[in-house]
């Protein structure tokens, strides 16, 4: 069972499951098993943006004026976001494209991953603008223990699926001894289980972990600091809201059995493990909050409040994939985040700083009071 970039078999792709059916051959969208994925593609394309559209000159000045512990919060948060998008910019492609069986889903995966590469480029744009030596920041992502701990938990499910699929593609089914790893059993139920847990862990990454980091970014902007950064994060948050809907659809379609009856059995078996993925991630995010605020809090946000937000958002996301909520926190402790998360096409808060569509090459961030000297009322 090896992967082919153009499957020669003649088959009806609308009869295939989302994953582990036939390899896709013709990229055709005239007939679709799950039209939702094409709708997600269209939406994602309508969101297209470039980081360079956002002016960050004021952020540089703001950053220099931040207190040391606030710089630690800002930079650590940015490093974490960089890590998450480094993983997301490649992993859906590497892990899911070799096993996808529907053209509309294949293209959604590529579109989704591509948008993550825009996010990665925007972190470089931010870092270049606020510090003189970006290398120090990027290098720390692979050496800082607090960050590498998280790298392990966000990549391990992907890595396991990729490993199993590559064995499956070269050796087929069976138990194989992999040097340094021992015996690995490859069977369709094992592959599907690895897939289901991977999609669950990606949902946690995009729907929980990212939102915790957004809260920190917007925490600065609430104090009218690092507003250019917040504009970029707002655009990223709009994309992530769409991506998390994508993984929620995959998980719910799998669990419903409408896509692949065998997957419904696997989803049921994995319920406990999926719940643990959410809870474990939430605990890690709370530990991370403690690390962020270890040298001091900032106005409006501290480890405790951020921890409550972790619990709240985890509950929301668990419920969205059919799990019972786990944490006691039922209310959003930082309701102001909604005004920052809201998408631009609905202008509820028309302050210029909050509407990124106004920003496309339009703003002059170097205005000061003297520019209005010759105004008379």
């Amino acid at each position, binding site marked *: 069972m090896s992967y082919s970039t153009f499957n020669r078999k003649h088959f009806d792709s609308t009869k295939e499951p989302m994953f582990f059916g036939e390899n896709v051959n013709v990229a055709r969208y005239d007939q679709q098993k799950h039209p939702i994925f094409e709708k997600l593609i269209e*939406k994602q394309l309508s969101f297209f943006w470039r980081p360079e559209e956002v002016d960050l000159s004021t952020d540089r000045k703001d950053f220099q004026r931040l207190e040391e512990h606030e710089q630690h919060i800002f930079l650590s948060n940015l490093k974490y976001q960089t890590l998450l998008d480094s993983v997301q910019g490649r992993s859906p492609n590497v892990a899911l494209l070799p096993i996808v069986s529907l053209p509309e889903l294949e293209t959604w995966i590529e579109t989704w991953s591509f948008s993550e590469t825009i996010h990665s480029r925007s972190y470089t744009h931010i870092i270049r603008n606020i510090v003189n030596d970006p290398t120090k920041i990027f290098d720390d992502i692979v050496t800082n223990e607090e960050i590498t701990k998280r790298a392990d938990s966000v990549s391990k499910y992907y890595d396991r699926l990729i490993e199993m699929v590559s064995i499956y593609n070269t050796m087929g089914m069976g138990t194989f001894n992999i040097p340094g790893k021992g015996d690995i059993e490859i069977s369709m139920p094992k592959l599907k289980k690895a897939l289901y847990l991977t999609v669950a862990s990606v949902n946690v990454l995009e729907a929980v972990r990212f939102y915790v980091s957004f809260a920190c970014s917007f925490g600065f902007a609430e104090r009218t600091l690092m507003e250019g950064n917040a504009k970029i994060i707002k655009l990223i948050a709009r994309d992530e*809201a769409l991506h998390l809907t994508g993984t929620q659809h995959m998980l719910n379609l799998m669990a419903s059995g409408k896509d692949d009856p065998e997957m419904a059995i696997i989803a049921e078996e994995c319920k406990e493990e999926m719940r643990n993925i959410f809870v474990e991630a939430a605990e890690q995010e709370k530990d991370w909050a403690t690390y962020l605020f270890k040298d001091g809090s900032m106005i409006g946000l501290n480890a405790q409040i951020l921890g409550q937000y972790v619990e709240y958002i985890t509950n929301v996301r668990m419920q969205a994939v059919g799990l019972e909520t786990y944490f006691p926190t*039922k209310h959003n402790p930082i309701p102001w985040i909604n005004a920052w998360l809201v998408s631009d096409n609905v202008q509820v808060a028309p302050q210029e700083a909050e509407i990124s569509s106004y920003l496309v090459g339009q703003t002059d961030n170097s205005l000061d009071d003297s520019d209005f000297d010759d105004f008379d009322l």
Partner: protein
Amino acid sequence: MTQTSMTSISKHALPETKDQVHRVLIGKKQILVTEEEPLLVQLERAGIHIEYQCREGYCSSCSVKLLWGHVSYPFEPLAWVQSGYMLACCAIVKSDIEIAFFD
């Protein structure tokens, strides 16, 4: 997961107006809404704040439990709507309804 019975109840208690008016029950609170706008904006106007992000049906932040009653969507939302839930940002209330947040 709670199952919803999509029962509509009679509206004889309400005056007949040109625009249909429905009751929305949320715990012990009750507000009146029309069919002209989605539920979310009408809740906000009544001072009831619920979570939102996209306000156009793809992020599912405004998902609330629909305990009973009818709602309809002028366009099908992109978000997955769990059975027994509704998206307040884009749902039009079509009968008296009762909604709830988290358990």
